[in-house]
C-alpha cells in the first residue's frame, strides 16, 4: 500500500504544466520506478502525483532531416534499446539503457525519468553526456533547451522548477555522426543492480592514419554528478592508436576523476576500476570504428 495523497492524470504537455502549477506540492510520475520506491521508503510518502504516462507526444524516437535525434522523455528503456534509429545510429545508448535493473524495470522505466531523477548512477547519463545531449523542457511559456552538462546540479538535484516538464532528449547530428561508442557499467552483479562506477566513451578515429581524432569520456559515480573527463580527452586527441594511448587513458583518468570512499567501495578501488574500464571502453569504441570502416570499404568494393 503506497502513501499517495492525490493523483492527477495529464494527457497533454500543457495539461501537465497546468496541473503542476495548480498543485505546487505535486510531483511528476512517469514509469514510477524511482518515484514509487521513494514513496515506499518514506522519502516522498504522502505526496501528490501528476502522471505524464498518457502524453503521447513525449513517447517514441524520431530522426529529423537535420540529422538530430529526438527521444521522447517518456520512452521506456526497452523501446530505446529496440528502436531502429537508435540501433543504427547510436547503438551505445540502447546498450547502456539495456543495463538498467531487469526486464520489468526496463519495460516501465523511462529515459526522461532516468535523467530527471538526478542520480549519478543513472545508466543513460554517461552516454548522453558523451553524446552532448540537449534537453528540451516545456514550462508553458515557450520552453528552453538545456545542455545535459548544465542540467545536473548535484546528487538528486536537476535544473527543473515546479511546472517544468522534460519532453525530449535531443542528440545533435554533428555529435554522433562519424563517432562510435561503448559503455561499461561496473556493478557488483550482472543484473538488478546500480553502477558502482560506469564509463561511456564516444570516439572518432581516422582509420587510415590510425589516429584518435576526437574522444569524449564520461563517468557515472565518479563525482556528485556525471563527470566528463575534459583534461584527459584533450591530452588524448590526435594520439596514435596503440599501447601508449591506452596506457595514457588509464593513467590520466585516475588523475582526473574524484570518486568517493563509501561502504559500497573504497576510493582506491574505484580509481583502479575507473582506469581499467576507461581503457577497455576506449579500446572497444575504437575497435567498432575500425570494423565500421572495414565494412564500409568492403561495401564499396562490391
Amino acid at each position, binding site marked *: *500500500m*503506497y*502513501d499517495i495523497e492525490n493523483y492527477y492524470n495529464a494527457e497533454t504537455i500543457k495539461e501537465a504544466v497546468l496541473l503542476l502549477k495548480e498543485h505546487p506540492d505535486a510531483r511528476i510520475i512517469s514509469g514510477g520506478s524511482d518515484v514509487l520506491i521513494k514513496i515506499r521508503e*518514506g522519502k516522498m*510518502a*504522502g505526496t501528490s502525483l501528476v502522471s505524464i504516462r498518457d502524453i503521447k507526444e513525449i513517447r517514441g524516437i524520431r530522426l529529423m532531416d537535420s540529422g538530430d535525434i529526438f527521444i521522447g522523455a517518456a520512452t521506456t528503456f526497452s523501446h530505446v534499446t529496440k528502436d531502429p534509429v537508435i540501433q543504427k545510429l547510436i547503438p551505445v545508448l540502447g546498450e547502456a539503457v539495456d543495463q538498467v535493473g*531487469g526486464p520489468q524495470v526496463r519495460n516501465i522505466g523511462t529515459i526522461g525519468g532516468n535523467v530527471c531523477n538526478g542520480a549519478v548512477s543513472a545508466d543513460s547519463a554517461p552516454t548522453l553526456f558523451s553524446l552532448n545531449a540537449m534537453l528540451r523542457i516545456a514550462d508553458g511559456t515557450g520552453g528552453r533547451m538545456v545542455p545535459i552538462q548544465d542540467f545536473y546540479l548535484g546528487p538528486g538535484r536537476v535544473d527543473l522548477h515546479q511546472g517544468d516538464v522534460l519532453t525530449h532528449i535531443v542528440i545533435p547530428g554533428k555529435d554522433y555522426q562519424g563517432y562510435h561508442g561503448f559503455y561499461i557499467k*561496473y556493478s*557488483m*552483479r*550482472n*543484473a*538488478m*543492480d*546500480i553502477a*558502482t562506477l560506469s564509463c561511456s566513451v564516444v570516439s572518432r578515429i581516422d582509420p587510415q592514419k590510425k589516429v584518435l581524432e576526437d574522444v569524449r569520456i564520461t563517468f557515472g559515480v565518479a563525482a556528485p554528478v556525471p563527470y566528463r573527463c575534459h583534461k584527459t580527452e584533450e591530452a588524448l586527441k590526435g594520439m596514435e592508436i596503440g599501447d601508449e594511448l591506452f596506457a595514457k587513458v588509464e593513467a590520466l583518468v585516475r588523475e582526473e576523476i574524484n570518486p568517493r570512499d563509501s*561502504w*559500497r*567501495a*573504497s576510493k*582506491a*578501488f574505484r580509481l*583502479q*576500476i575507473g582506469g*581499467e*574500464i576507461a581503457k577497455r571502453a576506449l579500446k572497444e569504441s575504437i575497435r567498432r570504428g575500425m570494423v565500421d570502416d572495414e565494412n564500409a570499404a568492403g561495401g564499396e568494393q562490391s
Partner: protein
Amino acid sequence: MIGKSVPRVDAYEKVTGRAKFTDDMILDKCLVAKVCHATIGNGIVKSIDTSEAEALDGVVKVVTFKDVPNHCYPTPGHPWSVELAHQDVADRNLLTGRVRYYGDDIAAVVAEDEVTASRALKLIKVEYEEYPVVLSPRLSMRGSEHPIHLDKKDNILARSSFAIGDVDKGLEDAAVQIHRSYKTPIVQHCHIENNISYAYMEKGRIVVVSSTQIPHIVRRVVGQALGIPWGQVRVIKPYVGGGFGNKQEVLYEPLNAFLTMQVGGRPVKIELTREETFTNTRTRHSIEYEMTAGVDREGHLLAKEMTAYSNQGAYASHGHAIAANGLTASRLQYACPNIRGEAYTVYTNCPTAGAMRGYGIPQVCYATESFMDDIAYEIGMDPLEFRRKNLIHGYYEDAYLKPIAANSNGIFECLDKGAAYIHWDEKRKAYADQTGDIRRGVGMALFSYKTGVWPISLEIAGARLSLNQDGSVQLQVGATEIGQGADTVFSQMAAETLHMDISRVHIVTMQDTDVTPFDTGAYASRQSFVTGTAVKECAQLLKQKILDYARTLVPGNVDRLELEDGYILADGRQAISLEELAMESYYSLSNSSVLTAEVSRQVKKNTVATGCCFAEVEVDMKLGKIKVLDIVNVHDSGVLLNPQLAAMQVHGGMSMGMGCGLSEQLLLDKKTGRPLNGTLLDYKLMTTMDTPDLTAEFVELNDPMGPYGNKALGEPPAIPGAPAIRNAVLHATGIGFAEIPLTPQRLIDGFTKAGLI
C-alpha cells in the same frame, strides 16, 4: 514409488496461483500492526510519548514496552527440553525499553490500514540514553560497562570445548606447523515470502496463522511468551514461500497474539517489510576461526586445533547450538589422532543470528576446507591428494555424541565423481603458475552433515493415515512443506509401503495444531529421515489393519494375504479390491469400522551424509571479478527418494553457497550497528545472470538407518560451495583469502597488497 521423479504434489497449485499462502487467507477487516523500531544500537529508552499517534484517525491501539508481560521467553525452534539445563535461553520480551541492537522493538501500533499505521509510527516520540555499540565478538567478550544482558557480565552466552588425544604432543611431533585465521560474513536467508502472520480470537482462544516451519513450536512459544496455557493457542501453517531456517524461529507471532488480545480479539496482521526481514528477524552467524595443525613429512594430519568466536548479536535465539554444531563437525571425517576444539558464542549489538540452512556447518566447512587447502599449498601437495590421504574410509562415529555415525560413507566415490567431472588432474596442471590479467583455477571442498538432531535434542514425529471410501488414503503429518518437496516424498513413502499409486495418496498440506499430529517441523534435514520413519510405520500399521479386515471378508481358508496395486491378494490371487474393502469398512451393517492408523514416534537414530563441491573459476585480476565457469556438487545422501526433487534441492543450495562465497554479506554501520545494505538492491543476492549452469551428481548408497535408505539432503547442498570457490581462486592466483565473500573490493585489495596488479 521411492526413487521415482514423480511431479511435486503441489506443482499445479503453485504454478497456477491457487496455492494459499498466509497473505491469501487474511480475514476481512483485518487490522494492521506495525512495529516501532529503535533508532540507536545500544542503550535505553528514557521516554516515549505515543499521544499523537493514538490521536491519529484510524489508529486502534498503541502499546509500548511498558505494556507487555515482564517475563522473558525463548524464541528458537528447538524441541522443548524437560531438563532445565538444556532449555533454550529466555532473554526476550515482546517489546523492550533496553535497546540491544539498531532496530530493537520498542512499541507497536495497530491501525485500520497500513498507511495509517506507518503514519502513526512517525508520530511516536522517543528519547534515548545511548551506550557504546560493540559489533565484534572478540571485543564484546572483554565485557562492557552495560552488559547486553544483565546475567552475562562478560557478554559470553556460552563456551564449550573438547579434546581428543594430545594436541600439544601432536604439534610437537609434526614436520610442519601451520596457523591460519578465517572469518565468515553475516548473511540472510532472503526467502521470497517475508515473515507474515495474523492472529485473532475465537471462543476465548487465540488463533495464529503464520508462515512458519514449526507450527507446533510456535504454539508452545506463544503460550510461554503470553504466560497462558498452551492449549489456549491454535497455530495454522499454510503454504510457505521459503524459510531456510529463518522460520525455524518464533518471531513476531507472540506479539501478534498479544496485539489481538489488546483489541478484543479482532484480527491483526503483522507483515514485515524486506528491510525488517533483514534487520529484525535472524541472520546466519558470522564466525571467526583460529586454526592450527601439524602434519608429518608425508602429509598426514597429526594434530589440529580450532577456536571459534561466534557473533550471536543481541539475543540468544539458537545461541551456542550453532557454534557447538561446528565443534562436533570439526572432529568428524578426517582421520586425525589429536583434535582440540573450543567455541565461544558472544552477545554483540548486531542483529540477532539464528538458524540458517546448514546450522553452523557452512561456516566451519569454509574454515576447515580453506585450511586444508592452505596446508596442502604450504607443503606443496595436491589438495585432493591431501584430502584422500587424511579422510576416513567407511564407518566412523563421533567420539562424544552416540549414535552419530557415518553408517554409510560415500565420500571417496563423491571425490572421484567430482574430480572426473571437472577434469581435476589436467586443469590443476594447466592452470599452474599463471601470470596474465585473466587467470583460471579449480578448487574443491567437502563436508559431513548429521541427519536430524538426535541425541543433542529430541527427535519425534507424527503421522496419521485414514482409508477413504474409494480406497485412496488421507495422509496427515506434523512435518511441514516449505518448498523443499516434503509433501511429495511423504506421499511417495505412503504409496510405496501401501503399494498404491501416488495419485491415491492425498496429503493434507496445511498444519493446524488443533488437528495435526505432533511433529517439531522442518529443520536439520530431519523430515525425510525422522518423519519418514513415522510415515513408514504408520503405513505399515494401516496395511496390517487392512489385511486384518480383509481376513473377515475373504471366504475360505487363506494362508497369505497381500496388498498390491489396490487389490487384496489371497494366496497370490486377486480376492477383493481395496475400494470394495473400504466400502465395507464404512457401511457394513455387520462389521463396519473405518480404518485409520496413527503413529507418534521418537527416533533415536542419526547418520552422517557427505559430499563435495568442485568449481572452476576465471579471475579478472584488474577488475576484481570472479566468474564461476563450472561447478558441481556431488552428494552421498543415501537412496534418493525423488531424483528430480533431489537435484532441485542441490541447485538451490549451490546458489546459496556461491552467494555466501562471492557476494552476500550484511554490512553494519560501525557506530550504530545499523544495517547499511538491508535491501535486495544492496545485499547482493545472486541473480540468474550471475549463476552458471549448476550440476548435481549423486552417489547412492543404501543407508541402514534411513527409513528408505535415505539420509540428510535438505541443508548439505549449501555447505561446500564457498570454500570450493575460494580454493579455486587460490589455485588461480596464489592468494588464499581469509575472509568471504570474495567481493571485488576484497580481491582488488588482496591483489594490490600481493603486488599482482
